[in-house]
């Protein structure tokens, strides 16, 4: 199984169609309830997003849809799914890191996340996997925490370096 540009284009076209549907669901529902979907230009906050949604729908139908239809028979070679496993793992690790920032704090989460990404990128040297993440974590903590006075996430353990 390969993912091609056509697959991505179809996914984006579906996304645009969903956005258009969502706009009308909100302007005809929630915005009517709020009383901001009618009246003059001052009070009508729905007409502008509706106009944009209609334009998006028109462009999709008039220009993009026929092109996608015409291209369906000419599927060029794409990226094998196996090749996408590394970036998918990276994104999953990044999502876990974002969650861990709130739960465990910057100092606890960052070295593990960096080491994991480096491992995914092919680094196998234990020294590199320990030294680089620790050095970068401390350096960024010094810049943001020490120089810029940013309070980095401390997590449930309250970990922080008093720069």
């Amino acid at each position: 199984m390969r993912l091609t540009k056509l697959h991505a284009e179809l996914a984006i076209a579906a996304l645009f169609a969903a956005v258009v549907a969502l706009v009308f669901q909100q302007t005809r529902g929630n915005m009517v309830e709020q009383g901001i979907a009618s009246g003059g230009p001052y009070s009508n906050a729905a007409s502008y997003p509706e106009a944009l949604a209609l334009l998006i729908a028109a462009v999709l139908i008039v220009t993009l849809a026929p092109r996608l239809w015409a291209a369906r028979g000419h599927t060029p070679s794409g990226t094998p799914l196996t090749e996408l496993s590394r970036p998918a793992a990276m994104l999953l690790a990044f999502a876990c890191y974002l969650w861990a920032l709130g739960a465990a704090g910057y100092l606890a989460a960052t070295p593990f996340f960096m080491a994991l990404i480096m491992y995914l990128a092919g680094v196998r040297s234990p020294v590199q996997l320990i030294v680089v993440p620790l050095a970068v974590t401390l350096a960024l903590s010094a810049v943001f925490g020490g120089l810029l006075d940013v309070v980095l996430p401390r997590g449930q353990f309250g970990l922080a370096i008093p720069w």
Partner: protein
Amino acid sequence: MIFEMLSSGAVLMASPEVLLLTFLGVILGLVIGALPGLGPLMGVVLLLPVALYVEPLAGLGLLIAVFVGGSCGGAISAILLRIPGTPIAAATLFDGYPMAQKGRAADALGLAICASSLGGLFGGVLLILFAPLLAAFATRFGPPELALLGVLGLLSIAVVSREDTTKGLLAGMLGMLIATIGTDELSTGYRFTFDSYQMLNGFHIVSIVVGLFAVSEMAWQFIGREKVSSESPRAARPGLRSLKLIARHIPNLLRSSTIGTFFGTLPGAGGDISAFTSYAVAKAVAKPEEGYGEGAEGGVVATEAANNATCGGALIPTLSLGIPGDATTAVLMGALLILGLFPGPALFADRPEVVGGIFLVYILANLFLLVLGFLLVPVFVRLLRLPKSSLIPTILVLCAIGTFALQSSVFDLWVMFGFGLLGILLRAADYPLAPVVIGTILGPIVENNFRRSMLISREGLWIFTDRPISAVLLALCCALVALALWFGFRGKSTSRRA
């Protein structure tokens, strides 16, 4: 007026913080520009959160200096590795790499640095001369003109920047829709907030920009599609001899800088188009014995002068009209808006010292570029050996804590992640990302001024044709829409033939 602006700006610029951050910005810009796959836009995106934590002019100095340094840094890897660090340096390798192959790497690097700095200074002089004039003219603009100007900026970016205009338009409109999320400025109603208090102010522009550009780029690099060179960069230290060499190319330098500044002022044209155009012009004008494509000094001068002059040119519409020239200036404009400085004629009238300061930090960044470029090239050459396996996690951590630092909000982190996924999908489908950001920035300008126009109009939409300037802008918008549709249909017929 210009003199007063510059003298009040000089007082602001003289602070140690501004000088230090401009200095650091040039170094960081050169480093980020030299590393293949990154570039001035990525540099400005990554340092945007940092810039918001310091004094406004110091932060803007940092971002502008990264823009200037990054526009030149790409030449280092183009010349030494035959990999342009940034797309805008792609034309530099036509002659820069052959020069290095002939043992003249130091000369090529020296010429690139001199041409970048002098081209940037030329663009800076035109910025100082023309931005106030354009801003003075724009004081005649009312809501109808401002609304149409926003539409014109977005249309020109979609039409000029990419071959696929349809995708550019769709991306721009998506950005404009994203900008409607949150509290409506006029009716104060909530739009697309889904009863979430965190969405009442919409999405933070930094979360959008970092996700779209930085996170998606890192994922893209992880697929391994980036160009990789097995070559080890050779040691090279440019000397003062480069100043003598550049003196032989003054007409080429001036011509290329003019082309670069002109293309910079056109929203969407950007440094790559200006570099390729000035290269083509220089090659057409040159004598055959100069050997363009085989290591001609003039080729390096033309491309590097043009792509740095573009920076100054791109700042002209950004500062005077509030219309960003490209994605990097869109991010700079986002920074100005977050800092409470609204680009346009009002900025020149109300905060002339800030405008003067911005002019001067731009000039200063180009002067620093000349000095630092010569001194630090050997260091940058060593940095080209930095493994991506260390770079990617560092950038991802920087994305996370930079976004978190804005409002100490975990919600912003998830917004960034979401836009990262959107950016990956858009890249995979070959959609341009810049129109999304520019649409997000220009969207509120267009909507609010359109609705204000309707409020003051007694004849409905005819207000846009009754006023001369707005009628001209409307005609330009119609011409661009016609062009966009023509490009769209041409693309359709091309795909049918394929």
